[in-house]
Structure formats: C-alpha cells, structure tokens
C-alpha cells in the first residue's frame, strides 16, 4: 500500500486488531495488523489495522457492524 494512501484504525489490543482484520477480510477489504508507532500510541504499545484510505467509509461500516471499537483513524500520521 502506498504510504500516502494508507489509513490506520487503532484498537484496544492486538486481539481487536485481529478481529477487525478478519471482519474486513470477510468484506473483501484488504488490511493488515500493525503495531502502532509512537505518534499513534500515546500510552505505548498499541495495535491497529492498516487499510487503503479509499475504503475508509466501508471500513467504518464493517467495524461498526462487528461491534469493534476504533480509538482513532489516521491517514499517515495525521488523525482524521
């Protein structure tokens, strides 16, 4: 994924990130579980899923339907 077009949804833990990845995969949205860097991880050690920014609306819908709480969405390092 081109880094300019990559968005990240941050989650409570790797478990939720894995659940999110599975839900997105079921909706044919490509994603991968990542460990978040310092800028996105103010309390230290956080996980999330990366996905193409063009899919953000779909990602929001899928994760909401799967009752997966997203802490923040980022495009690059910028919270959106």
């Amino acid at each position, binding site marked *: 994924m081109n880094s300019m077009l990559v968005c990240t949804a941050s989650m*409570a*833990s*790797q*478990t939720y990130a894995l*659940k999110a990845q599975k839900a997105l995969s079921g909706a044919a949205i490509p994603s991968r579980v990542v460990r978040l860097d310092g800028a996105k991880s103010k309390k230290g*050690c*956080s996980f999330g899923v990366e996905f193409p920014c063009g899919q953000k609306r779909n990602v929001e819908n899928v994760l909401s339907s799967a*009752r997966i709480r997203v802490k923040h969405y980022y495009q690059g390092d910028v919270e959106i």
Partner: protein
Amino acid sequence: MIYLDNAATSFPKPPSVLREVERCIENYCGNPGRGSHTLSRRSAEKVYETRELIADFFGSSSPENVFFTYNDTYVLNILIKGLAQVGDHVIISDMEHNSVYRPIDALKRKGLINYDIFNSMCLSENRSAQKICDNIRALIRPNTKMLIASHASNICSASLPLKEIGTLCQAYGIIFIVDAAQSAGHLPIDIKKMNISALCAPGHKGLFGIQGSGFAVLADDILPEVLIEGGSGVNSLSTEMPDSPPERYEAGTLSVPAIVSLGAGIKHLRRQTVEQIHEHESGLYKSLLTMLSDIPRIKVYAPDHVGSTLLFNIDGIPCERVADMLDRCGICVRSGYHCSPLGHRTLGTLDSGAVRISFGAFNEKKDLEQLYLALKKISKK
C-alpha cells in the same frame, strides 16, 4: 494400562493435539501480543483462532470475550474475587469443588460477603429442574449478587439444569457463573441460550488440550475487577491494566503451546457432536453399573445420574487401598475426596471418601471388563 481418571485430566490426547503442540514449539511459538515480528504475530493469530473456536463452541459471538489463564481455578478466582463486593450475598451449589468453595469461603471469613448453599437434590427421587430452582429461589436475598454452580459434579454424574437456573438468575438480575470443568466437551453448553454470565473451564479435560490452558467466556456485560496485574502488551506507559477483555485478565506471558493444544482439541471434538460423546460415555456408565451390581460389597453413589463419572466404595476396604490395588492391575482411578468436601458431604461419603471412575471419549467397553474383573478379585480380599 487402562486410564479411568479423565475427570482429573483426559488421557490420551488426540494425535492432532500433539502435532499442534509440536508445530507450535518448532515453528511459531513467539510471544503473542508483544512484538510486531513474524513469530509474535503468528503466535497471536493462533491464540486468536483458539478464542474463536472456544467462542463458537460455547455459543458466543465474541472471541474477544474469551480470556486465558493457567487453569480453571485461576479463572474462577478472577471472576469470584473480581465481581464480589463488600456486603454481597452469593449462592453456590452443594456439589461445588474447592475451586469455588474455598475462594467463596475465604471472602466470607474476611467478613466481605455471605453465602448460602442450595440443595441440588442429587439423591432425591423427585429431582426436577423446577424443584432445584425453587430451592435456589428460597435463598435469594435483595443483595444476592451471583450464583456459582458446577454444571456437572466431579465426583458423580449429576448435572444441573443450566437453562432453567440461568433464566431464574436473569429474572432476579443475578450474575450466573458456571464451572464447566467436568462438562465442557461432555455436555452441550450454550452461554446465550442458557443465560450464562461467565463460563469457566479447563482446557485439559474434556476439551483435550494439554495442562495449562484454563479459560473463561464472558457475556458482554460482565467486567470483573482485575486480580492479577502486569505486562499485557498494550498501553505499556499506563500504570493500569487495559479496560477490556481479554488482555485485561491476561497479565504476563500466555502459555501458547497449551492454548493452541486446546484449539486442536476443540477441532478434534467437532468431528462429532457433544451429544454423541455423552451417549458413548453414558453407554459405558450403564454397562459398568450392570457389571458392578454383580459384586455384592460394592456400593455406587448417586447411581441414577448417568454420565462420565461413577463413584463407589467396597465395603470394608478403604478407598485408597482399592485405588492402589487397581493401580497394581494397571488401572488408573482416583480415590479420596477429589477436592470436593461439599460433594462428598452431599453424597454421604465425607467420612470415608470414595473411589472415582471417570470415562473419556477414548474408553471402550473392554476397559470396563478389565476393571470389573479386577474389582471382583479385590472385593474377595
């Protein structure tokens, strides 16, 4: 060797369980939820897969509500001590294992809670779900916070009507905790249909995992206080544990080989239904009961409850001696009190203890025939 101590731990394990443990240790046993490298990630994926298998097996749609500890006792302690508050009243059954009885009694001795024990009518000819629920209802107080009950006894084959008890608890707003140590993999359990607030079980008994894999399945609205704090892999700069399961209750490194063995065990179980396993074990029970009726000095306790566990004594021979003589014949059973003083008091064996035979899915009728011959010989001594 004939193994008839499956209530303590199942033996043997399916070959697929052994293969998965080997694969784990050889190929992917990183520390899950910690690093971002390949082995940590693969390990986390396998742990998550096991959460999914457990959730699905017990009727939950929330794998994130499945958390792991080392055994069932740890899980029960986390739930009991994490949910009980000062002034609460708790109800437990008269067949509880010490994994429930001791933590509850300890809270009482500290002056924090009170508890009552309900009569599960194990020895009554008029036993019914309604009468058991009536017994429970009579003990409910305005401050009754939770009811904890073993689904199936660890000393005989009596089991409780979870659906009816769950409905009763829901009507009174009582948290319903089920200890499925002896029923997971032996009897059907659905946490939603049975209104169970939290299901606790070991992985190493009827689910065929190796030792070191206890777990709980929580309903969405159950969030016990944290009992054990430490590293969780998330929010490391915070002094507090995460606010949601499973990591909230998983301080320290998980036993990944044990957890993935449990996943493999559940996959093995899913080749048949739990009802089929119960039918197989019930068939063994009935056969053994018929055989034992031929031996005059044998007394079987609560014989009308058909299932995977049979408790007996031979008149005039201490239970420990019977178990020792069976061991010399190559037959593994367990004698004594089975960490269940409440159950033995209920069945009238508190003075003597008793011998427990517990079948598993791998036992066959020929095992029982060997047992019968050995017991016949022992009873003549």
